[in-house]
């Protein structure tokens, strides 16, 4: 047997078919490595995804107090983690909508000179109902329901009918 490559076939012995044996060992080793790699990378990949945060504050927040806003003005309020825009129109009516521009998510503001909602980043315009009227925004701002209860102005998400 001296000088013989340990991986070659000894045709006289039916139990030592070495090519399949080597394959089996390679497959075992390979799948072992693969399993180790998965065991390493799966937790790492999951770790990279930030945990979902519960949107505290629910569906309804106090956006301001009566008398805080003059007619023809607006303010940003916190709606959970997101900014919202509360407007008092020149006629004294309250409107509320998301303040996150639908173009590239800058925070919009009320322009009292134009009576419109404006995004300073890319010059997007919305009307007082949040409809996108000019510039790059592709969609309207989500509009919210406004209720005045006593001294407080409540804003809540519109329920699907």
């Amino acid at each position, binding site marked *: 047997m001296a000088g013989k490559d340990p991986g070659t076939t000894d045709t006289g012995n039916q139990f030592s078919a070495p090519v399949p044996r080597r394959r089996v060992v390679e497959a075992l080793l390979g799948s072992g490595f693969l399993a180790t790699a998965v065991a390493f990378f799966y937790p790492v990949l999951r770790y990279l995804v930030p945990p979902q945060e519960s949107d505290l504050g629910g569906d309804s927040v106090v956006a301001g107090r009566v008398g805080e806003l003059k007619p023809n003005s607006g303010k940003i309020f916190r709606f959970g983690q997101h900014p919202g825009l509360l407007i008092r129109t020149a006629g004294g009516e309250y409107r509320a909508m998301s303040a996150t521009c639908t173009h590239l998510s800058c925070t919009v503001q009320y322009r009292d000179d134009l009576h419109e909602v404006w995004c300073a980043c890319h010059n997007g315009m919305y009307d007082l109902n949040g409809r996108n009227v000019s510039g*790059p925004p592709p969609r309207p701002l989500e509009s919210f329901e406004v209720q005045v209860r006593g001294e407080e102005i409540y804003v809540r998400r519109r329920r699907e009918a």
Partner: protein
Amino acid sequence: MSVWHSLRDWLNDRLEWDDLIEPLRKKAVPLHGLSYWYFLGGITLFLFVIQVLTGILLLLYYRPGANEAFESVQYIMTQVQFGWLIRSVHSWSANLMVFTAFAHMFSVLFLKAYRKPRELTWVSGVVLLFLVMGFGFSGYLLPWNTLAFFATKVGTDIAGQVPLIGKPLMIFLRGGEEVTGATLTRFFGFHVAVLPGIATLLILLHVLLVQRLGISVPPKLEVEWNANPAMKREMKFFPNFMLRELMAWYVALGVLGALAAIFPWNLGVKADPFVPAPAGIKPEWYFLFMFQTLKMIPSKIWFIDGEVLGVLAFGVIGLVWLLLPFFESEDPSRTKRWITGLAIFALTYVAGMSVYGHLAK
């Protein structure tokens, strides 16, 4: 025998030091009217080293986190001795580095230095340019001021426009749905650990390739020199060219120091997620051409959102840019004219849109 000689002999006995630096001695730099452009890569490398050094210094006092970042930079600028200078050098050097990297890329493009066998040098260089822009984008947020906050909102939202992987990519970058303190921590990690690690490896590869392949000769000159080898003119890299390069670094250091001291970098106003974006908001100058393009694309083109189309277009252009050498002819006398045309168009577009973006309201 001087100390230097005995040290060299000691090293030679053990490491065969002279063999190691032999390739540097053989290396030569082609001499012609445009040889000055060969300095730009080296200057970019020099500015990168300045970034690493000043970055480490800033790390001694900087604290990431929405409640601390702005205050810690303010502390660096007002309380720490020469803190304002270190931060100003870091900001100025970053901007100069972006500029020299772009200039280096365009010089390589116009001198057609990306041709075979230097395709991989080009690819590694373009990836490095993208990394430099990544450094700029991630570092910009770290002082946590209003401009940076909205720039990051817009920038990560642009990443979010990519079809299929956009949303998960955006959440990964922001560390959540919105730009918050979690985003700041992530960007800090990218800026001081992930990007420097990748960039250092790629710079090593890039410089190694330059070393291995030698310095390219513009195609016209290559044809002439091949036809008549007596016309060939070269300068030894070591020490002749290197000493000139060192002088260029010295000048760069002077310019950097003067800019940093005479025009100290501003800190701005602390970011507040619940105020509107201020009027006249603009990104850093090297993103202006993309910003202005996105501003001018209509909201809908056919049935696709304008910004999705814009982002896809920039992605495709970036990919074509990366693979540009593979479209070029191997024969120096038949280089592709359309690539030169594209380069002129790209330079004009980037410069024109940047100026327009700067002037536009």
